[in-house]
């Protein structure tokens, strides 16, 4: 079992420039059903190295001709918000936005429209590594080979830290049900609570690892949610314990501002909720393993 993506995923790639094409190839090699690419104005053309992939002008055509149900977006920031909304309007139900650097103003509008017009659409990201169900389907930019099918659901605000925890878990023999990168932007689609709820219900998920970082208060809310609703074992890690206030640490959303968003507050909230917190990023895997032994 898995959440969001799996054997049923019929994926399209919006934005098949160099990055999109490179990752489309990687996803196909992993076994993901990539059914089409979308490149406005270039419908009917071919992408070098991906000659088997049909290219369309619009998302609607891919839904009509291939039954596409999931989209991954590599469109550069100026067109990314538009691409997300096009996917939603065409009937795509899972939209995974990899693009980093989308203006917050654009995402505020996207989120507003999705919430009001397309409540059934799940948006992951933007500024995220994507979603992978090991052995079934890889959607995004993560290195596939570090993953292993199993029962740990992973949800994270950081890309490379997700790879780090997955690598550690795999080395310990703990496979993953699905790993979801929710992204590092302040305005995003899915947040921790949504992902935690999916994992809580997924029969294929037996434990959860959650990776947060400084900025905002999603981790505090997640801690409360876990305390109230999640009975599966949960371990976590929070990045940015040494980050100075007022400085944006790479991710647009990773900033301690107005005295809010510090790692210490998040760790305290998680511990209060009875969640195991790894003391260092090198001990994420062992922290969960200890919980399961």
């Amino acid at each position, binding site marked *: 079992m898995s959440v969001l993506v799996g054997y049923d995923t019929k994926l399209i790639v919006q934005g098949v420039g160099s990055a999109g094409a490179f990752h489309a190839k990687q996803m196909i090699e992993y076994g993901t059903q990539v059914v089409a690419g979308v490149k406005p104005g270039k419908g009917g053309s071919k992408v070098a190295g991906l000659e088997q992939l049909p290219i369309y002008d619009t998302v609607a055509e891919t839904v009509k001709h291939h039954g596409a149900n999931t989209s991954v977006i590599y469109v550069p920031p100026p067109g990314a918000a538009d691409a997300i909304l096009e996917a939603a309007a065409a009937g795509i139900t899972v939209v995974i936005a990899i693009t980093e650097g989308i203006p*917050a103003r654009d995402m505020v509008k996207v989120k507003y429209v999705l919430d009001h017009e397309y409540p059934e659409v799940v948006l992951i990201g933007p500024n995220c590594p994507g979603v992978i169900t090991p052995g079934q389907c890889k959607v995004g930019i993560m290195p596939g080979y570090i993953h292993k099918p199993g029962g740990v659901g992973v949800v994270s605000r950081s*890309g*490379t830290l997700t790879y780090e925890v997955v690598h550690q878990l795999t080395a310990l023999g703990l496979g993953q049900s699905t790993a979801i990168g929710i992204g590092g932007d302040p305005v995003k689609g899915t947040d921790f609570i949504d992902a935690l709820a999916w994992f809580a219900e997924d029969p294929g998920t037996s434990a959860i690892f959650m990776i947060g970082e400084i900025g905002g208060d999603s981790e505090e809310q997640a801690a409360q949610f876990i305390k109230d609703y999640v009975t599966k074992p949960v371990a976590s890690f929070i*990045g940015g314990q040494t980050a100075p206030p007022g*400085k944006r640490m790479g991710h647009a959303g990773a900033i301690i501002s107005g005295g809010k968003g510090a790692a210490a507050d998040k760790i305290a909230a998680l511990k209060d909720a009875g969640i195991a917190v790894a003391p260092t990023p090198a001990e994420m895997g062992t922290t969960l393993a200890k919980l399961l032994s």
Partner: protein
Amino acid sequence: MKIHEYQGKQLFRKYGVPVPIGIPAMTVEEALAAIPKVQQQAGTDVVVVKAQIHAGGRGKGGGVKVAKTKADAEDAVKKIFGMQLVTPQTGPEGKKVQRLLVEQGLAIEHEYYLGMLLDRATAQVTVMASTEGGMDIEEVAATHPEKILKEPIDPAIGWQDWQSRSLAKRLGLSGKAADEFAAFMRPLARCYEEEDCSLLEINPLITTKDGKVLALDAKINFDDNALYRHPELEAWRDPNEEDPAESEAKKWDLSYISLDGNIGCMVNGAGLAMSTMDIIKFYGGAPANFLDVGGGATAEKVTAAFKIIMSSPDVKAIFVNIFGGIMKCDTIAQGVITAVKEVGLKVPLVVRLEGTNVELGKKMLAESKLNIVAAADMADGAQKVVKAAKETQR
């Protein structure tokens, strides 16, 4: 991106948000010449001389002076220009004042706080207002949260006049001041939206004895992700306000922040970069910087990043911590080797590589014959680099 108060007020003027009469000055002479002009335009002798630095709390540090006469104003200009202004936000070393704003003095009736920023929880821009103007608003939020009023801006229709009326009522504004407040808010909300602001603070917003509403201060930050839509803002960047290493990093599109420690870090991914700082601290070291080389970096970019790290005299050891996803380990290895060949390696270098093309990357580093300490994993690397930094420091 941050801008100065006087630049923020120029922006306000463009949108029609009322601000006091004022003239910015880049030299003492310009400031002295501005005094009679402001006095004449405003029809009053009272002027305010304000230090223009990006940090807040300027008044407390002596960077803002009200002068009742031309002579007093000239004194204030001479005193403030060039001073090392220390505020709670500058750190103990302070910030040298190289720009001034000479502004008309006003008969203040009351001071308010007004802020606009993105509320992550609702994913909407929120207007915050308080009768406790002129105060440290974070302190008000902590001690009297009920004194901070909030009004969200609907992303579909924008700020509405009824919201201004509602806020005015709750702030105790009535009559002409309430009307003026609505007229103030309309262009302000438009400015926030159209200029892609990420933070807008007016502290204080004032009402005058004759019922006017004006922005006495202007603190504006812009969304870095949206700067491509506003190329004209580049001219407002003040190099004196930016860390030279951070500016150099920006040219290469690297995410870099200078810190106080002595261990240089080069990492891919913001989360891993932050956590690398954490684990260095955990093992008793102190990071000299945050550096995320990003996912799609080229060897040239990695070389540039490495040079920026090595340019700091404080750096006593370097930790390269890479988990290759899109980033390939051989690209990192190539960038490091090139940088070391160009500028030499004066301090110990600890490298931890994992992920895409890891074997190739390790092989390249081994064959380069550079003096590199290989780390098995993150914890091993962190311990080795902390130890190396301590030994070099001695």
